[in-house]
């Protein structure tokens, strides 16, 4: 097992090289080598700083400079991102059992897709690599996610207000199939970037619509159950916060 710092360095290195459009095979090779190196170095009581020198960021850049840019793969990244965005947009309604398509909805999907890709693209390639070792890293990522999702929700409300006629309404079976397809895309993405956050975000997104679909209406409106739900959510939030705090402290002291 690698220490937290080593683990983080490896993940950041992979994201950095991927965002710079390096070839997967090359990335795997250097990541494998450094993982092996860190394993052995840690056995001898050395830290990440022994390997990376004073600035991990400079070190990542120097590795990147020696690696070729993979044009084909970078072009493929765009449809991959579009697929992922579509999966995120379709997942919640599909799980809730209310997936439908209208012309206006389709247009807003496309517009949001483009805006989303531009925002995420700029953030992943330009902003995040500069903030790898800053506490702002996740803050900005979450902020961008909230802004993009928020804009989408607003567009969705406007669209609903305009009452545009859907030309496709999914049956329960189709809803399930769409949801399964989305889950497959999330897992594939997670495996591809070797990080679990797409699946975690999907899990998080699915809580509310799952409730909407499967909890009977009389329970849904019962003040007692509403109170229970709120209490449980608050407890879970506190639990997660405490867990993150402990992890963060460990990392700081280690």
């Amino acid at each position, binding site marked *: 097992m690698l220490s937290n710092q080593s683990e983080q360095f490896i993940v950041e290195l992979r994201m950095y090289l991927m965002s710079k459009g390096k070839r997967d095979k090359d990335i795997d*090779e250097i990541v494998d080598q450094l993982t*092996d190196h860190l394993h052995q170095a840690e056995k001898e009581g*050395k830290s990440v700083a022994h390997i990376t020198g004073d600035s991990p960021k400079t070190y990542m850049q120097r590795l990147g400079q020696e690696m070729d840019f993979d044009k084909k793969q970078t072009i493929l990244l765009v449809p991959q991102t579009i697929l992922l965005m579509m999966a995120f947009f379709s997942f919640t309604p599909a799980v809730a059992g209310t997936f439908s398509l209208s012309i206006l909805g389709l247009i807003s999907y496309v517009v949001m897709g483009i805006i989303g890709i531009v925002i995420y693209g700029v953030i992943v390639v330009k902003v995040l690599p500069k903030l790898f070792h800053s506490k702002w890293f996740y803050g900005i990522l979450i902020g961008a996610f909230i802004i993009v999702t928020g804009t989408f929700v607003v567009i969705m409300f406007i669209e609903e207000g305009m009452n545009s006629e859907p030309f496709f309404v999914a049956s329960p079976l189709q809803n399930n199939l769409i949801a399964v397809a989305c889950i497959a895309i999330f897992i594939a993405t997670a495996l591809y970037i070797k990080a679990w956050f797409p699946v975690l975000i999907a899990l998080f997104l699915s809580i509310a619509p799952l409730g909407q679909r499967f909890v009977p209406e009389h329970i849904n409106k019962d003040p007692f159950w509403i109170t229970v739900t709120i209490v449980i959510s608050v407890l879970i939030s506190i639990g997660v916060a405490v867990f993150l705090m402990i992890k963060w402290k460990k990392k700081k002291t280690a």
Partner: protein
Amino acid sequence: MSTSSQMLKGLLDGSLLALIAKGETYGYEIIHKLQDHHFPIISEGSIYPVLMRLQKKNYVSTTTRKSPSGPKRKYYHITQEGKEELENFHAQWKALSQGVTSLLEGGDH
């Protein structure tokens, strides 16, 4: 970057080539061997950009095998082109080090 680390950066390519010429080796072992020779390195990771460069220039070839401890390990060996480059480096270094030593330690003439 300090003068000494600039200097090292220039010499690391040839030095790693010389080390690989002594027999097949891999990343962490290279560090140990460099230490055995009291070779001053800036940071352990600094060998990897150099190894990538040597491989790209075809001075070394690689094979990946399972290591005794489990994960895959990439082993480096020298190629014919690498051997020729090493001879160049050796000759240049000889001339350079003689010149620098003579300048630093020689008299005032």
